[in-house]
């Protein structure tokens, strides 16, 4: 469904090449790859930060890095992994797969989509520019006030963090608007909401969470900015301000954020398991309703991150009960996934193994989470390595395993080549072993009293051995990712060519060539059920065991009538001027004014680019 001017189909059925074509692309598939590559690079950076921290903690009273450096490392590790690693890796899949899975040709706003990416990239670079200027952020990834005030954080480190996150938030929200409209409004004929693939449902819930939760952190950061730049009193105890206001606003964002981080992986697993078990997802409606419930009630549990601040017994109890309630829809999903395997015919591909790993590890992370839901218990666990273990089990064992499963699953579709399965299995087992060796002992370390965010510890507390073990595990994880890089390198040139449907899968993206043509579907399909491709191949009991009709073969006339939006440089230009304006806040007011005016001007040009599209071809 085109939104802008026609192009000459003859010249653009093949994707253009060259740097400029990537800079001006508005094709969701290319944008997905841009997100994916960027996310992977930042994930590696965050990983290096983790390795340095683990080396520092491998032995007590270590002097590998200073206290200040360590504090910067854990701040940037957390910020990078969450905002520049997991979220954009999810965005890579939203971008590439959502139109394909709903039978659309692109997203609702292709240029806005590109804009989201370029704003994301500028936010990521802005954040990392702090390293160049020698002031990387050091307030922790959740930047509690009033440590982040000008008084206690006088350098610009917190400003980089604050403004960087603001920029990243804008990128996420723009993408959120785009995908909600796309999923609501651009589904192929016959695809009712309940016929959407579960991955699409999870994506939809995630986008609602993004657009409704990010405003809270936007406000939190604005109040911090005003405190630091203009002397307001929002988080200033001396002026009557309450540092806890930051915590409330941050966690009103922060808790939905963790669902933003996990639901995409849950969506991926919900696609991978049925494909390789050769059965539909068990209880797909339940899984969908659980996702919606989690999204909705996820806004009501934020203060379970604040059980130690002294909110009083009524608030503590209310949030405790709400948190336990939310564990129910989260937990039963696991049973749905396992039940999907029952009676199946399981092929142990790499993608499948990573999804299995997800289930196993997320179960553990979820159980430690239930412990945290009880404030009395949590008072011994919060701010210790026990909670560090918990969130790494859900974010790494959960999100990362799930996202990596998606990489292996959809790689053939995106790049037209199969990844090497043997190397994939090496990757899986190394990651599984490395991950557990790193993080399982951290439960123990937390239970014997090791607090988090400490750059060193005394030698006589019984923490030495398992810290060393944990460090070794971290290097095994690193090795596992090297395996993946070797796999990519080897197969890009000489890997087996992937056909449209190498896995005998169930959903629409596997009905088109690998990689897809720039227009995705030559003929927009009509959808008869949730696993439309499976219905076309095999049918099921609702179709009387007969396959449903396949769409007719595409003709040249079909392709000739397709209109796709042409490339545009306004997204990157607008993103650049926005960065100029934001940078000005740290450099000079003139830059803010200039950047602001240029931003307004390029917003106008962006909006007017297709105010009057040229006459259509027919």
């Amino acid at each position, binding site marked *: 469904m085109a939104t802008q001017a026609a192009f000459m189909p003859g010249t653009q059925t093949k994707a253009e090449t060259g740097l400029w074509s990537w800079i001006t692309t508005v094709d969701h598939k290319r944008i997905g790859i841009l997100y994916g590559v960027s996310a992977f690079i930042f994930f590696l950076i965050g990983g290096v930060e983790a390795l340095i921290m683990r080396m520092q903690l491998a032995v007590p009273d270590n002097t590998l890095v200073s206290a200040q450096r360590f504090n910067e490392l854990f701040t940037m590790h957390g910020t990078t992994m969450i905002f520049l690693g997991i979220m954009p890796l999810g965005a890579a899949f939203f971008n590439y797969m959502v139109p394909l899975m709903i039978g659309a040709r692109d997203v609702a706003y292709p240029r806005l989509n590109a804009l989201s990416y370029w704003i994301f990239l500028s936010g990521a670079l802005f954040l990392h520019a702090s390293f160049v200027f020698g002031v990387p952020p050091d307030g922790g990834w959740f930047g509690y006030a009033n440590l982040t005030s000008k008084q206690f954080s006088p350098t610009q480190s917190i400003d980089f963090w604050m403004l960087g996150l603001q920029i990243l938030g804008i990128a996420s929200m723009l993408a959120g608007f785009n995908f909600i*409209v796309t999923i609501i*409004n*651009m589904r192929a*004929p016959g695809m009712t909401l309940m016929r959407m693939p579960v991955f699409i449902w999870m994506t939809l819930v995630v986008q609602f969470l993004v657009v409704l*939760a990010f*405003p809270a952190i936007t406000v939190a950061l604005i109040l911090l900015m005003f405190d630091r730049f203009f002397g307001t009193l*929002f988080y200033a105890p001396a002026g*009557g301000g309450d540092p806890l206001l930051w915590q409330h*606003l941050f966690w009103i964002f922060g808790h939905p954020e963790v669902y933003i981080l996990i639901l995409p992986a849950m969506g991926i697993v919900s696609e991978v398991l049925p494909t390789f078990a050769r059965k539909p997802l068990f209880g797909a409606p339940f899984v969908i309703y659980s996702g919606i419930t989690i999204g909705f009630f996820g806004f009501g549990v934020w203060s379970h991150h604040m059980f130690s601040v002294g909110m009083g017994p009524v608030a503590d109890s209310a949030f405790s009960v709400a948190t336990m309630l939310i564990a129910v829809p989260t937990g039963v999903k696991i049973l749905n996934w396992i039940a999907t395997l029952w009676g199946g015919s399981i092929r142990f591909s790499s993608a499948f193994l990573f999804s299995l790993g997800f289930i196993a590890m997320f179960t553990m992370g979820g159980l430690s989470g239930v412990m945290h839901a009880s404030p009395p218990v949590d008072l011994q666990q919060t701010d210790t390595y026990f909670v560090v273990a918990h969130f790494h089990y859900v974010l790494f064992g959960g999100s990362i395993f799930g996202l990596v499963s998606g990489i292996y699953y959809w790689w053939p579709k995106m790049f037209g080549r199969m990844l090497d399965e043997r190397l994939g299995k090496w990757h899986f087992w190394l990651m599984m072993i490395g991950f557990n060796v790193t993080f399982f002992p951290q439960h123990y370390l937390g239970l014997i009293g090791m607090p988090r965010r400490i750059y060193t510890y005394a030698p006589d507390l019984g923490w030495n051995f398992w810290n060393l073990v944990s460090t070794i595990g971290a290097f095994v994880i690193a090795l596992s990712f090297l395996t993946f890089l070797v796999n990519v390198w080897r197969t890009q040139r000489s890997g087996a060519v992937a056909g449209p449907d190498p896995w005998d899968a169930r959903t629409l993206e596997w009905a088109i060539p690998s990689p897809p043509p720039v227009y995705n579907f030559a003929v927009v399909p*009509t959808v008869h059920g949730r696993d439309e491709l499976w219905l076309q191949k095999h049918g099921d009991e609702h179709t009387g065991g007969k396959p449903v009709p396949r769409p007719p073969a595409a003709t040249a006339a079909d392709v000739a009538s397709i209109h796709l939006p042409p490339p545009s440089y306004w997204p990157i230009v607008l993103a650049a001027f926005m960065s100029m304006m934001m940078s000005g806040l740290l450099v000079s007011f003139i830059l803010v004014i200039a950047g602001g005016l240029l931003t307004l001007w390029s917003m106008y040009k962006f909006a007017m680019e297709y105010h009057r599209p040229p006459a259509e071809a027919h």
Partner: protein
Amino acid sequence: MAGPGAHGEAAVHGAAAHAHHDPNIGTTGLDNRKVGMWIFLGSDCMFFGSLIGTYLSYKGKSLGGPTPAEVFNIPLTSYSAALLLFSSLTMVLALDALKANRIKASAWWLFATAMAGLHFVLNQVYEFAEFVLHYGLTLHTSLFGSSFFVLTGFHGAHVTGGVIWLLIWVGLAMRGKLDPRDYTKVEVAGLYWHFVDIVWIAIFTIIYLIP
């Protein structure tokens, strides 16, 4: 998940045919741009909700400085509220005229809307100046100062953005670049404008009127 019935397919096919005609209309029959604006407004609700929540949590907790009762100019802000309400009316009239291809009338109504908005903003500038110069209430005087100026300031910024947006339509209309084809685009600006009006009603009630 039942098989396709004839009725279902026809309805869907109809929507698809319509969509082929106007690429902005999706398979649900809704316009992409309107859905997008509604979602954005939902998000903006959370934004203002957080700012209003901040104001309310600090109400009565200032350690000094002028109090709301001392500084608020209710007649002025009531007039401002009336201005915005009036501007929502002119906005609707502008859209009505546009739909009927009365471009000049539409441009005048859009201009009136923008001017009402501009008047609102100027009132606010006057109000802020009074607070600062006459009462000594600034951003850093007290919690009231901080939360009041940030909340109402961001609302004023939203109004300003809306004024600029509307004036752009006026400019395009004057250059003959606005016609009934652009109805949805202007309607979307109207949705934004009404939202900004409603937020002001909420702010006016919660911050100014309730003691």
